[in-house]
């Protein structure tokens, strides 16, 4: 009992910090979402019942953006997981210059998103960007990549994958390195093929790491903001606008903080539902096998 009290006491500073950084803003958003707070109220919060939430329900732009954000997150995270796993398996091989290779693959991740997004915007520029120059040198004609919803969306996803794939690969590589070599050797001695080893040994033991990467990346991707703001500005015609961008517009451009808080909180709730669902699913799929039990 006494030990329990000590534990709690020792955890208290961390808990207080977490509450200040996470719980307070959430509660504040919740409170603000039941108020009108905009230029029209002189930025003074005035209770308006559930008007913000009612508005949200019938706000087509919110739901369009929710669909777009979800589509972006699912596509980019799926590609990152697949690519990250391949990259991790490659970097796990005893290659010459592996250390340098590992450091190199990390570079996109170390780049600030804004800089990276500006770079992509330049690459895709019509007609001066390098991509269009390449197309022209092959005999094609320039294409306005960022003036078409489909190609803009494709390159937003691609840019995100390019940047965060190393992060996923790093996480999975860490997981790969916890898998004991003797297990692999034993399987090989018994005549298992490479594919069998991957399916029966590597992947199952990697599940906790995959789950971790999935949760991290899904949470980040659903909150995507800076990449889209810089690369496409949410265009063309709002087709790449994310929920975070919409919340930002409401707060910083429209100065409608009540509604911005509502959008933010609704986004958070959607995220929570999604991650909760994903977590439950993974739990059933064997996430309980924690890394230390695996070794």
């Amino acid at each position, binding site marked *: 009992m006494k030990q329990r009290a000590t534990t709690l006491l020792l955890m208290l500073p961390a808990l207080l910090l977490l509450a200040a950084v996470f719980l307070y803003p959430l509660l504040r958003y919740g409170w603000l979402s039941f108020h009108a707070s905009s*230029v029209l109220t002189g930025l003074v919060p005035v209770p308006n019942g559930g008007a913000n939430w009612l*508005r949200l329900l019938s706000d087509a732009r919110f739901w369009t953006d929710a669909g777009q954000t979800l589509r972006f997150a699912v596509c980019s995270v799926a590609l990152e997981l697949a690519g990250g796993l391949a990259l991790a398996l490659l970097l796990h091989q005893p290659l010459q210059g592996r250390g340098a290779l590992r450091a190199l693959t990390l570079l996109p991740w170390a780049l600030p998103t804004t800089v990276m997004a500006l770079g992509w915007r330049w690459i895709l*520029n019509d007609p001066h960007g390098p991509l269009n120059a390449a197309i022209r040198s092959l005999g094609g004609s320039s294409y306005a990549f960022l*003036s078409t919803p489909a190609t803009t969306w494709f390159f937003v996803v691609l840019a995100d994958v390019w940047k965060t794939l190393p992060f996923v690969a790093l996480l999975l590589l860490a997981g790969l*390195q916890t898998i004991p070599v003797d297990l692999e050797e034993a399987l090989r001695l018994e005549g298992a093929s490479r594919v069998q080893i991957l399916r029966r040994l590597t992947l199952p033991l990697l599940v906790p790491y995959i789950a971790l990467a999935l949760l991290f990346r899904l949470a980040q991707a659903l909150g995507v903001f800076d990449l889209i703001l810089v690369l496409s500005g949410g265009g063309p*015609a709002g087709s790449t606008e994310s929920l975070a961008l919409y919340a930002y517009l409401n707060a910083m451009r429209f*100065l409608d903080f009540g509604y911005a808080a509502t959008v933010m909180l609704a986004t958070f709730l959607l995220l929570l539902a999604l991650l909760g669902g994903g977590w439950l699913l993974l739990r059933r799929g064997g996430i309980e096998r924690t890394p230390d039990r695996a070794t």
Partner: protein
Amino acid sequence: MAVRSRLPSLRWRRCALMLLSAVLLSAVLLALLPSTGLVGAQPSAAQPIPIRVLMPAPLADAVAGPVARFNARGSGVAVEVVRGPLDTETISDLAISSLLLGEAPFDLLLVDVSWLAKYVAAGWLVPLERWFGPEVLAGMEPGARLGNGLGDHLWRMPLTGDTGLLYWRTDLMERPPRDTEELVALSRDLQRRGKVRWGYLWQGRQYEGLSCVMVEVLQAFGARWWNGATARTELDSPEAVAAAGWLAGLLRDGVSPKAVANYAENDALQSFAAGEAAFLRNWPYAWREIEKSDGPVKGKVGVTPMVGAPGEQGGGTLGTWGLSLIEGSPHPEEAVEVIRWLTGPVVQRQLAIEQGYAPTWSRLYDDADLQRRAPLLAVQRQALQHPQLRPLTPAYAQLSDLLARQVNGMLTAQEGPDQAMAAAQGQSLQVLRSVAGTTGPKGTASEG
């Protein structure tokens, strides 16, 4: 077993090291990047009263010389210019973030004409009529007088009188087009003869710049975005639909490239400066950029006020900057003195010579020496006679956002002009209704 179990731990350490180096690397990269945030200019001596002014970087650089001279005078006030980001919306974000916290770290803010109503409604600005009587604006060009007053108050003193202008190639035609029809006809002829790849370049990206373009196109076709008398938008009028249809036609007929739908000011300028087009819509700064460069069109560019459709009066969108006093400034009297001096003819003269910004004072336009040193002056004055103000309402940001979104949808061929404009009008009325539904707006749209 013991030997084997050490292997993973070694790997773990290597992994941790890699992680650490990645974090360190990103930290170093971040530190190397020049920060876009607040970078104070020279810290001044302790004695004089510091007056801080937040400005976008190009304007901050442009006034650096005069400010240094002002500070050297030893008037008891030290002006500190805070260099903000270059982009208009980014600097607004920065200003708003500070203003929301209450005690803003600056006394004066250089306010874009499109922010004014919003900032006034938020209660961030101090009315200036206590210091500047109604006669003060009388000495300015008509366009420069707009967008400074709201309600019965004067909220900012204009520093620049910039408007959207039409750039044309003096090597490809003898005179600029007189109307939109001529603009298109000249473009197509030059394109047919292989003189230029494109006819007309402008800003079609989904952002504020597209709203500025729309203001001009609406005016060119006798339509208007905002009716100040009824405080309503009129975006679905037949004239407005015709205006939008003209823009869409530019892309459809290949007079403007499809890429225009993602062009901001600089994208359009780069392409025009590379000699790829006959016409460009941009702000006055573009002329200096072209003349400063060694590009293929240097010395071959003329500037004219925005043209209208045949029989209609064209007009350029007002993109003026002015100084406002921030509520809560500890030294309002001194800050106003700085406004008086910074918006005065000495500084404006320098801005016109060095950066091509249009002055607001009429007498500067009559100055023969300045006319010689700032070649755009005559055109800029002409443009200020038919200025186009964006809707002066606190809900402007919403209205502009949805208009740019709809028009960009039209430009990227997702809907026709009539659908786009009908949708924009419907959504605008919805915004205005929700605005009227809350509390009465503090300042309705009376301009002066």
